């Protein structure tokens, strides 16, 4: 390929759809990708059961997300207030150490544990919905 002596190649492309005579009644929407192929079938209404299952799943996932977010806020949110309430570092050098230990180290494992917990619960929610759908 591409070695000297090989015959030259020419670039070939098909004719643009816009420039073609429309013989099948198609091509009317063939602009620069404004066709939404999924939309034709997506407009079908979903069965009520499925819509209910989706709503239930969304509610559960949102509740789970809010709980996880709430835990994050509850854990970290009050910290700035707590730190201002700590005794002055000059008087009690220990309090600075606490701030370092909490913000510099302890926060990160807590974040990972919280994230892991969320993932396990979220996947369980999804499995439940899938099982439900299969049984229905």
């Amino acid at each position, binding site marked *: 390929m591409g070695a000297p002596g090989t*015959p030259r190649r020419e670039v070939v492309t*098909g004719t643009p759809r816009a420039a073609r005579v429309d013989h099948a009644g198609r091509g009317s929407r*063939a602009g620069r990708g404004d066709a939404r192929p999924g939309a034709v079938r997506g407009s079908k209404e979903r*069965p009520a059961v499925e819509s209910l299952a989706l709503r239930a799943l969304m509610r559960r996932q949102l509740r789970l997300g809010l709980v996880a977010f709430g835990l994050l806020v509850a854990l970290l949110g009050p910290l700035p207030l707590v730190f201002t309430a700590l005794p002055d570092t000059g008087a009690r050098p220990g309090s600075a150490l606490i701030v370092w230990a909490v913000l510099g180290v302890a926060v990160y494992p807590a974040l990972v544990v919280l994230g892991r917990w969320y993932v396990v619960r979220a996947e369980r929610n999804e499995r439940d919905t899938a099982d439900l*759908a*299969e049984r229905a």
Partner: protein
Amino acid sequence: MNGFALLAAGAPLLFAGGLAAGRLVARRAAEGGTDPGTPVERATFHTLHTASLAAPPLRAGLTEDAARKAVRRLRPLFGAAALGLTDRDRPLAWDGPGRHHEDTVSDRVRQVLDTGRAQSFAVGCPDPDCPVRWGAAVPLTVDRRVLGALVVLGARESAALLRAAGEVARWVSVQLELAELDRARTGLIEAEIRALRAQISPHFIYNSLAAIASFVRTDPERARELLLEFADFTRYSFRRHGEFTTLAEELRSVEQFLELVRARFGQRLRVTLQIAPEVLPVTVPFLCLQPLVENAVKHGLEESVERSRIGITALDEGALARIVIEDNGVGMEPDRLRRILRGEGSPSSGIGLRNVDERLRQVYGDDHGLVIETGVGAGMKITIRVPKYRPGVHSTPPRTASGSA
């Protein structure tokens, strides 16, 4: 300094723009209720609005469900006692009183369906409170075929009502015609995929099975492997659902295809695969690579005796994925290739190329057709650029409660 002056100047503009956009939109929302307009304007608006409400259900075709919704939405247009839709065999939907006249009406409808002409008729009723004294039936025609009829029942004979019924019937006919077009289009895409599947089958299946058979005695383990490959490959190619798939799945199918080809040609075929893993989840049209690879194999092996090299490359290009399939086979005369892509070639050659080109253009637009570099004896290099995202293109249709099996 300039950057910040620019920021300082640009930011309030953005802010104002946001406010303006919000208010404009809010005002537009309020317009419907506050500006009454002239009576004519109001009537026009009312009619158009009613029609637009009835259109979506009808676009699903003339079904019971669609007819029920459409009739309920269209009836206010007439102010008539009752409105009904039928197809060729039976009444589909009825809105309003006068059900007890079904026999009279269905007789008339049958005549309308047979003749294809509208009719008006008097309805005799012993019940003095019955609001139905007169009726009209108008055919619904698409391509000069009568699909059904629209029936209006009213208190007295009225030419205006008859004319209105005629107009509405025509409008419904147009909607039904559009529905058929929609169906035809989806059908066409499916037909194109079916055509591809049909094209894969006879030759390839025969050759593969023959090759597998040749291993059964000498290397039963290999034969078993190949049979499993064959099973996977056909299962993928003949799967029922979905117009799209992921590049990863498509490549897996190509892998199986090539494994089967190698069973026949052995060391004469060398394949190099270079894949950037981040493009593997990209959504591509179903069976868009396999025909191109098959084409490369054909040019490389079946039409020449030398060793054949095929390279398959998939690269990340930001918002695009570039897929290149290159072979060192006999190549093709550019003009002949052009004719094939225009659909003027002989039916036996290059259907795969044209089919893939068509579908890529249809889905992604003309910028994304096949780009082929070739010459006689110069091999062939086919390039596809697929956008990573395009509205409406999804590899997996969302799991449905009914269709999860």
